[in-house]
């Protein structure tokens, strides 16, 4: 069996498979089904400074080979995440976890990241400057290189752990934003967040989602994600975490060939709750099939 371990910003992962934020909660629902310690890590539900209910429902729409969500960063706020969720998470997951953070101001990001940085279980901070479902924050920081750099700088100034900035695909030039984050001190880049999308109900002649638009994810977006991971990985010298429509062990290899050091899996968890475990189990077979002895050798291998 080939080597599946990878090193993400100085932390060793048993394998590169990481359930993505917002599709895995704090892990307990999945820990009821299987031992989630088989995963490389996971990125927990996006955390903000204050508690948030999120958007009105309906928040979900079906699409061909994907879905749209407009949850809107529902979470209990950083204090409760630390006092209530992390102790429970600790019981079911014993590896470093990725803390996903969103904000509505640079101060918000810094405040929340500083709090989570101090938690022993947290391995990385994944700074989400790309949520398409909240107004006056989230994605607005990720669509401008200067703003993305400012958030990165502010978070780096108050944290000690690796900072991975999660980027939005809803931009003209993702490479310039990734470079701006790297220059501002980011330790890694993760991409892509969801693509802004919309569905309209023919009977009601209204948007399916109450928030009208939402983030499109699922296997349909995989080619867009591979392309953007490829572009960013070829432009920066820090590790890239690839995500967007990943649904199989073959997809993991493809993302890594595009330049990803690790791979996040999002919407697929909602359809098949066992998919990440199945991908971890299937990875050795797929590595054999494509003659991969060590995953590290294929990172960015597609030229």
């Amino acid at each position, binding site marked *: 069996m080939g080597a599946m371990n990878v090193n993400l910003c100085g932390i060793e992962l048993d394998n590169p498979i990481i359930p993505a934020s917002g599709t895995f909660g704090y892990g307990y629902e999945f820990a009821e089904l299987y031992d989630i310690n088989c995963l490389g890590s996971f990125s927990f539900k996006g955390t903000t400074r204050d508690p948030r209910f999120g958007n009105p*429902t309906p928040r979900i729409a079906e699409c061909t080979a994907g879905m749209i969500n407009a949850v809107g960063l529902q979470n209990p706020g950083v204090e409760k995440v630390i006092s209530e969720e992390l102790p429970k998470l600790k019981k079911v997951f014993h590896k470093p976890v990725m803390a996903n953070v969103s904000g509505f101001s640079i101060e918000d990001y810094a405040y929340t990241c500083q709090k989570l940085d101090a938690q022993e279980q947290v391995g990385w901070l994944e700074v989400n400057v790309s949520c398409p479902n909240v107004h006056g924050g989230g994605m607005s920081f990720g669509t401008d290189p200067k703003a993305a750099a400012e958030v990165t700088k502010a978070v780096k100034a108050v944290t000690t752990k690796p900072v991975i900035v999660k980027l939005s695909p809803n931009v003209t030039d993702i490479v310039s934003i990734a470079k701006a984050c790297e220059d501002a001190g980011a330790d890694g880049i993760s991409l892509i967040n969801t693509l802004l999308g919309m569905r309209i109900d023919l009977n009601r002649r209204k948007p399916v989602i109450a928030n009208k638009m939402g983030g499109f994810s699922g296997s349909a977006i995989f080619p867009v994600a591979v392309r953007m991971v490829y572009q960013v990985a070829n432009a920066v010298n820090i590790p890239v975490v690839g995500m967007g429509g990943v649904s199989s062990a073959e997809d993991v290899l493809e993302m890594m060939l595009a330049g990803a050091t690790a791979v996040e899996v999002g919407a697929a968890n909602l359809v098949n709750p066992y998919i990440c475990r199945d991908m971890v189990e299937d990875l050795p077979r797929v590595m054999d099939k494509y003659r991969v002895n060590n995953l590290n050798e294929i990172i960015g291998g597609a030229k």
Partner: protein
Amino acid sequence: MKQSIFEIVSNQALTANVYRMELRGDTSAITAPGQFVNIQLDGMYLRRPISVCDVQGDILTIVYKVVGKGTEAMSRMESGKLDILTGLGNGYDLTLAGEKPVLLGGGVGVPPMYLLARKLREQGKEVSVILGFNTKDEIFYEQEFKALGCAVTVTTVDGSYGLKGFVTDALKTMDYTHFYTCGPEPMLKAVYRASVTSGQMSFEERMGCGFGACMGCSCKTLTGYKRICKDGPVMMKEEILWAQ
């Protein structure tokens, strides 16, 4: 929750757009009436959540209405296998029923009342059932509830069968210890206002996962934010906070 493969045993129309499907498989995760299953369908990305109508041994019965592409595809299935997540949702609490519970089902909210009625009858309860439909052609399961020994009242909005009006028109004349209901939200609101006891109400929402991971179906209640799929779909009357 359990993921397993079920085999379609039968699938037949009950009305113009309501179907009953019987499936054979591992039903062990289904522990209470009012729970639902989430069904994967070829060509559809998200699973389709459908309430459990009955479960006996390894046979799961669902009764569903054709409302979109997914249920349309289901209605055309004659045989084959389906990947289903079972044991989802909290389900109804039978211990609160008292001696004379009343069950109110509206339209496609009728099916989950069946397993509930059967369980309550097995406990020797005096069960009244009110089934609400728009018109005579939409009625299903009246005889099935009667066969369980329930006192059944059917209401139709247009008066083409049974009592003319809504389920609440029948409820007003009844003497009961607790209510259980499932149906469209305007009906739930009406039952909420018309009922004179505590009760349990089952809610519906568009879901992403169906097992509590995505926060797609959250609602606000007097006891905090809840996920319809995981903390519900059944809520106590006393905790409901109606959206404005």
